[in-house]
């Protein structure tokens, strides 16, 4: 029985890791429902495992996309103050909430994000000439969609910070990477190109998860052999995901993300 559980968790990790790396969202959105609905783990244990696999995804994707001008380290660092505070808050709050409450919350958050994603779908970010000033947080990157080097600036930083804090809480409460919230907001409202938003978010979710998971660890919510299985599965899956994501155009990434979220929300509402 135990061995079967490990095998299931590994398989789930591969799927979650693959799609997570492709979309820069950490894969928790798949893993938590699989662990709670599929294997019947208590919510907190599932969240703890998911957070650990989020760290794995984050580190793998970041290692693969580093040095290509896609990760905005400065923006990430500023937003991480907000996400880590959110993660700490969420992790502590989760200690007081029941399984049912958290499952419902999970479904609600996922449904909300799916709606936001579907509504925001077709926005290309405003960019400037290669020689323009990116400001203290913006940057330059090689835009595949436009075929040249472009400059972008970060707008509405308070919105990004607020959403980062919320995303951190979501991460701490539900085990989601939080990138699900950050990437659409950064792209649609803050002027960050989709690929940069995804890469920077992938970097941030790992730090956010580390701001929460010690609380779960101390509470005894980490099942080591299952966590190991999930992490190893996610590592394998995210390798494949990174390979595919380098070849997919930005617009299709957003469509895929919206479809994924709708499916997950339905599942969690039905089973939570």
């Amino acid at each position, binding site marked *: 029985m135990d061995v079967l559980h490990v095998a299931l968790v590994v398989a789930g990790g591969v799927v979650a890791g693959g799609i997570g790396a492709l979309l820069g969202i950490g894969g928790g959105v798949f893993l938590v429902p699989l662990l709670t609905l599929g294997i019947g783990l208590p919510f907190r244990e599932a969240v703890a495992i998911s957070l650990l696999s989020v760290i794995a995804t984050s580190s*793998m994707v970041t290692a693969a*996309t580093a040095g290509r001008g896609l990760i905005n380290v400065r923006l990430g660092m500023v937003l991480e103050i907000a996400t880590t505070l959110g993660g700490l808050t969420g992790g502590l709050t989760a200690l007081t909430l029941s399984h049912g409450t958290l499952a419902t919350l999970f479904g609600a958050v996922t449904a909300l994000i799916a709606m936001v994603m579907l509504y925001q779908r077709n926005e290309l970010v405003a960019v400037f000439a290669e020689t323009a000033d990116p400001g203290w947080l913006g*940057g330059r990157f090689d835009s595949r969609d436009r075929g040249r080097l472009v400059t972008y600036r970060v707008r509405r930083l308070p919105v990004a910070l607020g959403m980062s804090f919320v995303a951190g809480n979501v991460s701490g409460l539900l085990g989601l990477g939080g990138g699900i919230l950050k990437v659409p907001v950064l792209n649609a409202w803050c002027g960050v190109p989709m690929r940069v938003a995804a890469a920077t978010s992938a970097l941030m979710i790992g730090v956010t998860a580390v701001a929460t998971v010690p609380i779960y660890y101390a509470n005894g919510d980490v099942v080591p052999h299952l966590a190991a299985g999930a992490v190893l599965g996610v590592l394998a899956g995210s390798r494949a995901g990174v390979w595919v994501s380098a070849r997919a155009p930005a617009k299709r990434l957003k469509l895929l993300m919206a479809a994924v979220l709708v499916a997950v929300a339905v599942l969690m509402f039905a089973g939570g």
Partner: protein
Amino acid sequence: MGLGVTSRRSAALERLERMLGRILRAGVLLAAALLVAGLALWLVDAERTASHRLLHGGLFALMATPVLRVIVSVVGFARQGDRFFTLVALAVLGVLGVTAWAAVLRL
């Protein structure tokens, strides 16, 4: 502010990024090795003490990678003389410290 200054800043940032990437990859590989060993042992070990030690070790190594990454950023920003972002990165490290402290308290 000419293009020369900005591209020097970009080059330095890119070097920082690549070092982050290397550190993360090394950390994850170490963690994975420990987890594979731990899981393999877990499948055969009846007592489960040694395997648990390996598994927890692997998970701790995994948790250390983002922390290490933030530390490297602190050093990187400090080296570039960027006081503001050095402080920002230190603040992030501070929050991570608070979490660790909260966890230890519960233990």
